[in-house]
Each structure stands twice: as C-alpha cells, then as structure tokens.
C-alpha cells in the first residue's frame, strides 16, 4: 500500500486553479523526485500537502498511511509524520533553534504518547545531528534562521528533519543555494534517514542532486499536471532537452 496516495488532487490559490488533478502514489521507502518549470505548481503541491491556509482543495483526495490527510490541520499532519522542508525557510526572531526543535519534538512525542525528552538528552541528540550536518553549536543558540545565509537555512531545514524523523519528507528545493560541499553534506543527511519505511518527495531543478539522492521515480510537473513519469534517467534527459516539450503539451 502507498504511504502517500494522491488522487486527482486539485488546488486553488486566491480562486486561481494551480493544481489540476495530480495523481501520485509514493510507497514506503521510496524516493520520488519532481522537476518542472518555474511556476508549474511544485511548491503549491507541497504547501497543500502540508496543510497551509489559503490552499483550497477543490477536488481529489490524499491519504497518508491510510488516513485522510486533508481532514487534518497542518500541525496534526506534522505530528503524524509529514515533514516539509521549505523552499523559503521562515525567520523566527526571538525563538532559538534549540527551543524551536524542543517544542516541535515534544509536540510529536506527546502525540505519540511518549514522555518529553529530558533537556540534557535532547541537547546531546541535537548536537550530534547538527555536527553531522556541519553546523556549529552556536547556530543552535541563535534565533531560527535569523541572519542565516541561504545555504545555512537549507541546512537548518535538514537538521529539523533529522531531529523530527518524519515518515514522509517533502524537500522543496532544499538543494538550491547550497554550495558543492554543502550539497553533499545535506544529501548525506537525507540518505542517512533513508530506510524501508521512510519516503521522500524531492523537488528540484537540478539533476545533480539526484546523483546524490538517487530517486526511484522522477515526475515532470507542468502547469499543474504531472505530464511525464519515469526512472532516474528521465532527469538526465531533462537536463539535456529542457521542458519545452511539456510546456507545449500542457
């Protein structure tokens, strides 16, 4: 059975239809990549799946591990194990990274009927994960994303994912803004999390990322529809030929 099952999913923003019937089945442990021209609706899909207000579902259905995802509020979806790494991570002045991670993790643990982590244990665990992502400890004490460089913000999204250990992670252009070394570090971070139960939906413009995070399936989104699906060779093909074929078709 699919972990995430998206059927004929249609979404409007400000009464403007953006997604026009998306079908996508993501099985446990699978990595799917979505590529597509600017403005084709990739971020709209990720926001709509994450439950952001203002993204009105006008048709179709989405189930997550068998339950109706669209019935859940954004925070419930996250506690159920859906994670979105933002294309544009948000700055939170006055909220330190550590505080943020602690509240997020404890909200999830509470939901799972687990006890809150003891402060010391928590700090230790987070430090270890930050280190794996080459993030200095002082970044944990700083306000979330405030004054972070573009690449640091993306790394911070990856850290949040590593701490929250979601079942389904959507990475919206987590690779853009990363230098070559950081791309490797972040990809390693993602690959460390890969296992037979955890699935990924990776949105990217660059085939290069998919050399590191090798996808099982690649889809092309154009004008709110998935216009082509294939294996990882599709990404290579797109790198050569661009989107012209699909833009015309859509």
């Amino acid at each position, binding site marked *: 059975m699919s972990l995430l099952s998206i059927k004929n999913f249609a979404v409007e923003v400000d009464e403007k239809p953006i997604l026009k019937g998306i079908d996508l089945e993501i099985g446990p442990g699978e990595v799917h990549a979505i590529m597509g021209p600017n403005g084709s609706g990739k971020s709209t899909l990720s926001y709509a799946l994450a439950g952001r*207000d203002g993204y009105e579902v006008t048709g179709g259905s989405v189930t997550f591990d068998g339950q109706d995802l669209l019935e859940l509020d*954004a*925070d419930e979806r996250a506690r159920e194990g859906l994670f979105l790494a*933002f294309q544009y991570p948000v700055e*939170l002045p006055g909220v330190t990274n550590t*505080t943020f991670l602690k*509240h997020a993790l404890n909200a*999830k643990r509470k939901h799972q009927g687990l006890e809150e982590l003891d402060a010391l244990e928590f700090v230790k665990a987070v430090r270890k994960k930050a280190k794996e992502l080459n993030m200095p400890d002082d970044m944990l004490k700083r306000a979330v994303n405030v004054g972070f460089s573009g690449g640091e913000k993306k790394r911070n999204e990856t850290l949040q994912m590593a701490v*929250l250990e979601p079942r389904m992670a959507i990475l919206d252009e987590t690779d853009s803004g990363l230098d070559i070394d950081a791309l490797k570090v972040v990809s390693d971070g993602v690959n460390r999390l890969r296992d037979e139960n955890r699935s990924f939906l990776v949105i990217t413009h660059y085939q290069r990322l998919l050399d590191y995070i090798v996808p099982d399936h690649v889809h092309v989104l154009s004008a709110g529809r998935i216009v082509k699906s294939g294996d990882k060779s599709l990404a290579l093909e797109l790198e050569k030929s661009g989107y012209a074929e699909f833009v015309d078709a859509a």
Partner: protein
Amino acid sequence: MTKEIENFLSDLPTRREEGWKYTDLKAIGAVAEGAGWTSAPAARAQRLSETGPLAEIDADTLVFVDGNPVVSDETSDIISVMPEGIEIAPRPGRPLHLAFVSTAIDGEAFASSPKLSLAAKAGQHYALIESHTAIGTGNTLCMPRISIEAPRDAVIKHAALFDESAAGFTLSRIDVTLDQGAEYDGFALQTGLGLTRREATVTLAGEHGFARLGGAYVGRDSSHIDNTTLVVHNAANARSLQDFRGVLDGESRGVFQGKVLVAKDAQGTDGQQQHKALLLSPKAEVDAKPELEIYADDVQCAHGATVGAIDQNQLFYLRARGIPEDHARAMLTEAFLMQSLSGISDMAIRDVFRAHLTTRLGDR
C-alpha cells in the same frame, strides 16, 4: 488627602489637553466621586514582604503601602522624609528596591503622591528597582514622582515593574538629568490590569551621556497602558535609545507618545526611538505617536512605530513542525516581547522579568 491629590482630582486632565489625547482619566473621577479618596490607614504591616516577583532580588527595600512610605531599619540611614518629599541617598553597588504595594480591599479607595528624589554620586554605579503591585482589589491611585540627578560619569540601572490590579490607577513620573558621561539605563515592564501611565523625561545635560528607555507591556482585559517619554538632548555627542514593545489582547489599550528633542547645540547626537506593538484581539487598540524635534544639524536620529498581528508565515512554519496553533501563537507572542528584555543588562532581573512575562502571558 494631600492638597496635591485634591487639586489633581478636581482638575483631572481631559483628553483635549496636550499629551492626554489617548488616555482618559474619567474612570478615576468616577471612582473618586463614589468612594472619596482618603489617605491610607496604618500600613498592613504583615504584608510588607509581598512586593511581587522582584522581591527575589537582594536589595535594600523601601515599601510604600498604599502610597505611604514605611521606613525600616534597613533603609533609615539612606532616607530622609522631608515635608517636600523623600530624599534618598542610595548606596552605590547595593540595589535599592522601591516597592509600591497596594493593599486596599474592595470598597476602599486610597490616593497618594509620593515624591522621591535620588542623589547619585559622581562616577558611582547604582541599581534601582521599582515595583507596583497589588495584594488587594480596592481602588488605589498612586502618583509617584521620582527625580534622579546623575552627576558626572554616574551610572544608574533602573528596572521597574507595574503589575497593579484592575482597580489600580498609576500615574507615575520619572525625571532624570544626566551630566557629562553619565548613564541611565531604564527598563519598565508593565503587566497590570488597571490604568498605568508612565511619563519618563530624560535630559542629557552633559556631553557623552547615554540614556536608554526600554519597555515591554502586556495589555489584557480592559487594561490601559500609556508610555509617554521625552528625551531632551541639550549637550553634544550624547546618545539615547528608546525601545518599547507591547502585546495587546482583550479590550486593552496601549499608548506610546515618545519624543526626542535635540537642542541647537547638541551636535553629534544619536537618538533612536522605536515602538512595536502586536495586537492579539480585534478589540485591542494601540496609539503610537513618535516625534522628533531637531534643532541641531549634525545628528543621527531615527524613529519607527509598527503595529501588527501575528505573522501568518511564522505561524504556519511552527505548525508545520507539529506545534499546535495556540501553542505556536503563544510562542510567537512571547518571542516578540522577550526580544526587548535582551536590553536588560542584569541577568537576575532579566530572569525575573522573563518568568513574570511568561506567567502574565499565560494569564491572558
């Protein structure tokens, strides 16, 4: 009742008067008529220790019960009670806590207008703590007036907490004069349920003085919180910084009237002023009137005022990490106010204020 209060009550400023447009004192008049203001009876001595969260800070403590000073052994040698007011010679390095406690019970109404003047010594450092708290729910009108003279290179840190009951009216005034190289670093936390107006005037009378006026407030229910400031730069090369933040919920109202006045000779002035408010309820309201009046030409001055609601982007970000909406709102609200506390240099006071803010935000 003192003559001054009598005069004040019979001649309450109206909203038509300069500087009173946003703060309406009619309620005080109504209470005054109903109950008749009396001076407080003998101090309810058993409660002298209940001076609120700042009691935690080790300090010489001078308690004012319903406005009347209760001089203790601890404070007798630094205080002289004169007909025209209380003269205080604080000990350098030893915090002094001026604790205004209202004990009036329902049906009572007390008014007071203590006048305090603090004389600092050149080059010395002082820590002043001021608190306004209530353990009764009766009407009190407290109009403290504090004046501080800071001679050359004196440093005064001042932390004030206003946490009165819904029946408390506080109209406080503080006037600070800074000589050359002197520094005044003040922070006021206002979380009361009644009406608080704080007028702060700082005059930078000598070169290279520094003044900071910081503030954070939480408006709840129908509280009214007014900060009216005037920073006067009379000397060259002095610096002033004002940073106020408020959160308003329920039907509360916030007022910020801040003015920076730079005299003709005050070249090289650096005067910054900022007020930011976060509205949490459609019935809450804030009026901000920042003003710059500059007569010198070589100055660096800026002011800003913003009013907004909780940022939807930030709210979604927290929720997308699993934090429930009300919890996320509380976190963002707290974060907004806590940022202003970073201006408090004394860590112990900062911690007390942080904890108190968390409590009061939870009480909303």
